[in-house]
């Protein structure tokens, strides 16, 4: 009887410990939100919400802060990164699931996933020392010559190509997020019932038509989820962007101009902010970034989960 009681006690104890550990995940997320909220309160009281996100001044001397430029920079770099990354990632997923010979699928998939394992600081340093000089010497002048004379679009390619700009940052971001979309899309493609594909082949469709008209429509949710996952990553990426974007509080005039993102501002100014309101404004930016990426990731994960249970 005594041992039975002891076993019961141990079991309850272990249950309590494991339960507390798993609640820690919620406590952490809630804690992050509340702490950021508390720390950014002085800035919120002083500048308000619209006043902060619409103001482009960032003046530590006059103590006047607004987040328009870093927020815009974050959205623009992530947007261009997505435009570059989505077609590539989908192409890779199609190649791995439908085109490549069986023996090559595994190694190529593994290699693409390794792109996600390389630390972001390596991307940043490589971008600064290797990619940025190549960009400013060859790629950007070439784009300027060829695409710069187009109507409307030409303006995107104006300015002096220095290599430290939105274009380089977006290119590196796009390389970093390829594996996230690619692996989610690949998993979704593999869930397509073979019968669906076979019936399309049966009426004489080519492989590309099967992919375009059967596989991709069937996996719409999964693909959207993969894109959302990539977007969440791109918004919060710090070190890679910090090296190749500069930290210039100025709206970009073209793809070839430096600007700032939320993460770059945080990385560069956080430890140097000596005034409370400066630090509070940085926390405010962090809070906005947290809310943005949390929302996007939640939607993306929801989509991905739904495809898994279909």
């Amino acid at each position, binding site marked *: 009887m005594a041992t039975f009681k002891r076993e019961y006690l*141990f079991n309850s104890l272990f249950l309590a410990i494991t339960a507390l550990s798993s609640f820690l995940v919620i406590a952490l997320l809630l804690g992050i939100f509340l702490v950021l909220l508390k720390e950014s309160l002085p800035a919120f009281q002083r500048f308000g919400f619209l006043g902060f996100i619409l103001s482009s001044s960032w003046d530590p001397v006059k103590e006047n802060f607004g987040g328009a430029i870093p927020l815009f920079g974050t959205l623009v770099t992530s947007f261009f990164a997505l435009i570059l990354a989505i077609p590539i990632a989908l192409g890779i997923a199609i190649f791995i699931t439908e085109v490549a010979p069986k023996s090559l699928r595994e190694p190529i998939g593994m290699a693409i996933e390794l792109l996600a394992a390389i630390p972001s600081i390596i991307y940043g340093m*490589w971008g600064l020392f290797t990619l940025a000089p190549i960009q400013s010497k060859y790629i950007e002048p070439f784009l300027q010559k060829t695409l710069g004379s187009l109507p409307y679009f030409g303006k995107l390619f104006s300015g002096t190509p220095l290599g430290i700009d939105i274009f380089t940052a977006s290119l590196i971001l796009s390389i970093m997020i390829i594996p996230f979309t690619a692996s989610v899309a690949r998993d979704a493609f593999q869930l397509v019932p073979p019968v669906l594909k076979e019936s399309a082949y049966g009426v004489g469709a080519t492989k590309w038509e099967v992919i375009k008209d059967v596989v991709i429509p069937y996996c719409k949710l999964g693909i959207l989820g993969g894109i959302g996952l990539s977007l969440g990553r791109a918004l919060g990426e710090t070190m890679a962007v910090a090296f190749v974007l500069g930290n210039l509080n100025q709206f970009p005039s073209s793809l070839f101009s430096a600007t700032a993102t939320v993460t770059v501002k945080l990385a560069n100014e956080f430890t140097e902010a000596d005034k409370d309101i400066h630090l509070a404004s940085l926390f405010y930016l*962090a809070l906005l970034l947290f809310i943005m990426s949390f929302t996007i990731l939640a939607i993306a994960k929801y989509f991905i989960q739904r495809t898994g249970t279909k």
Partner: protein
Amino acid sequence: MIKRRKIINQIALFICFLTAVWGLFWLFFILFDVVRHGLTALTPSLILNDPAPPGVSGGGLKHAILGHTLITITATLIGVPIGILGGTFLAEYGRNWAFSRIISFLADIMVSVPAIIVGAFVYALFVKPIGHFSGFAGALALAFIMIPVIVRTTENMLSLIPWTLREAAFALGAPYYKVIFQIVYRGAGMGIFTGIILAIARVTGEAAPLLFTSFNNAFTSYNLREPLASLTVTIFQYAMGPYEDWHRQAWGASFLITLFILGLTLVGRYLIKRRFKH
């Protein structure tokens, strides 16, 4: 008409092939560059020497390697037990509880939450009240990043153990905690271990959360209560700095860290593959 469709098919599939080439191109370009620069920088003095004053060449990265190892080990010691226990709850005691699904959904999101935000959180929680940066704060930030990763992998690995195995143990009168320790953990041990390896690989490359927590230290230190240098923050500082020798050392540090992480990742992937083959 049929011919045109066939040509379109060929072109489209060829473009898919090109996208794979594009992805592999950047992977090899980056790795090749890191190895090329890294090998020229890699000397015994790079690993064994204390750092030299700025501008003086010949220093090493001993301080950063030691600091980074200390921070990572501490983070692992905090993050791994909590992560495993949390995952155990989700897969065992709380498996039929709707709230557990919410926790594992949130853990999934937290895996992708920007690391720099975790850094800012730990800064507000530990660095600001104490008044100075510390290696322990850095380890805590890394542990917070690790916990959701390990929670999720542990939960997945435990769910793979067939339920009948547990029932067999229950039938012998074993209490649940004993079933978990002696049946479930034993069966899922390799999977959990793989999750830990991948989680360590994930946090070793983080620089952003360390910027505001463990900060940096120009001297060799073993004290977790003081600011500690780490390889990643040192790379940031050296690569942005003006000295040629700093850039060389930054490449050396990048080489070391990339080698370590890719090695761990490949081992982890290999273990997963081996497990699912049987």
